[in-house]
């Protein structure tokens, strides 16, 4: 037995797995990270020195149309939400010993995640064509930093899911290893709840 395998079965004083405890601690700290970024966005979005703006605005008597495309972002939010459903179904499958089911749902989740990232890349490109960049104004800076970091988290999540999928194809994930899928799932669901907050506070609630 390898050292990693041996330590993964060590009993703990709490009766809980240390890896899961560490994941929750990490997610708690991530709340602070994204909370700060969202607060910074809300603080600076109205202090822009010029266009473009998230919603319709006026500078020097000229009206500018807002950048946000709510129908498009709503579809993205729906896609990420559904990826959370497929993720939890992957976990349910492996906990019942259904490896094939887990593989299908893991792949579905990764695909939906990629679809979300593609949507975000398209949105960033569109905004850039409209003249918004990281350094255009405070709205641009805080918006790209916030959604960029979220996109980076989704990308890491997709890589984790694809790694799990590849490992499972080699027969190295069985029912007894369901904690690995659960840990990936916790990270993925966290990324989803962050988008739930971003979608409401940044996109739907305009000043």
């Amino acid at each position, binding site marked *: 037995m390898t050292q990693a395998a041996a330590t993964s079965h060590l009993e703990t004083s709490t009766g809980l797995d240390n890896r899961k405890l560490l994941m*929750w601690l990490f997610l708690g700290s991530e709340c602070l990270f994204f909370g700060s970024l969202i607060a910074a966005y809300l603080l600076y979005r109205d202090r822009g020195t010029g266009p473009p703006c998230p919603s319709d605005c006026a500078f020097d008597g000229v009206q500018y149309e807002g950048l946000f495309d709510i129908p498009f972002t709503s579809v993205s939010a729906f896609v990420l939400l559904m990826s959370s459903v497929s993720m*939890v179904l992957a*976990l349910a499958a492996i906990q019942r010993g259904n490896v094939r089911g887990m593989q299908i749902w893991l792949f579905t989740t990764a695909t939906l995640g990629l679809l979300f990232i593609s949507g975000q890349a398209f949105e960033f490109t569109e905004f850039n064509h409209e003249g918004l960049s990281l350094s255009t104004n405070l709205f641009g800076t805080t918006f790209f930093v916030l959604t960029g970091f979220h996109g980076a988290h989704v990308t890491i999540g997709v890589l984790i899911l694809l790694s799990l999928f590849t490992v499972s194809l080699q027969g190295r994930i069985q029912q007894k290893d369901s904690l690995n899928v659960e840990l990936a799932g916790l990270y993925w669901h966290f990324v989803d709840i962050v988008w739930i907050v971003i979608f409401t*506070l940044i996109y739907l609630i305009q000043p």
Partner: protein
Amino acid sequence: MTLAEYRKRRGIDAAPPEHAAEREHVEKHPGALEYAQIGTILAVITGVEVGIYYMGVAHALLVIGLMVLSATKFSMVVLWFMHLKFDHRLFSSMFVLGFILALSIFTVVLATVGGKLV
């Protein structure tokens, strides 16, 4: 002393049992049907959010409505999909502590520096 020697001395089986709390937690998990039902509810709430956005209701009402719906979606994902409803309280404590700290920073920053939500 090696781990094997320690286990032998303490009378612990060579093949250690799974974490009791973990096993109990897994047994409480909902089934695929319940997850699908929750997913449907989440999708409907998202639809309602977008619908409210286009209804042209008063801004304050829009903000309150969207916040309530968003908090509902957030809670459903955390409680069911992340299993905090069924899991050990220590995990909840870790997350809630971080969340409350984040919410405090969020509120204090917006209140003192002058950001606005509404």
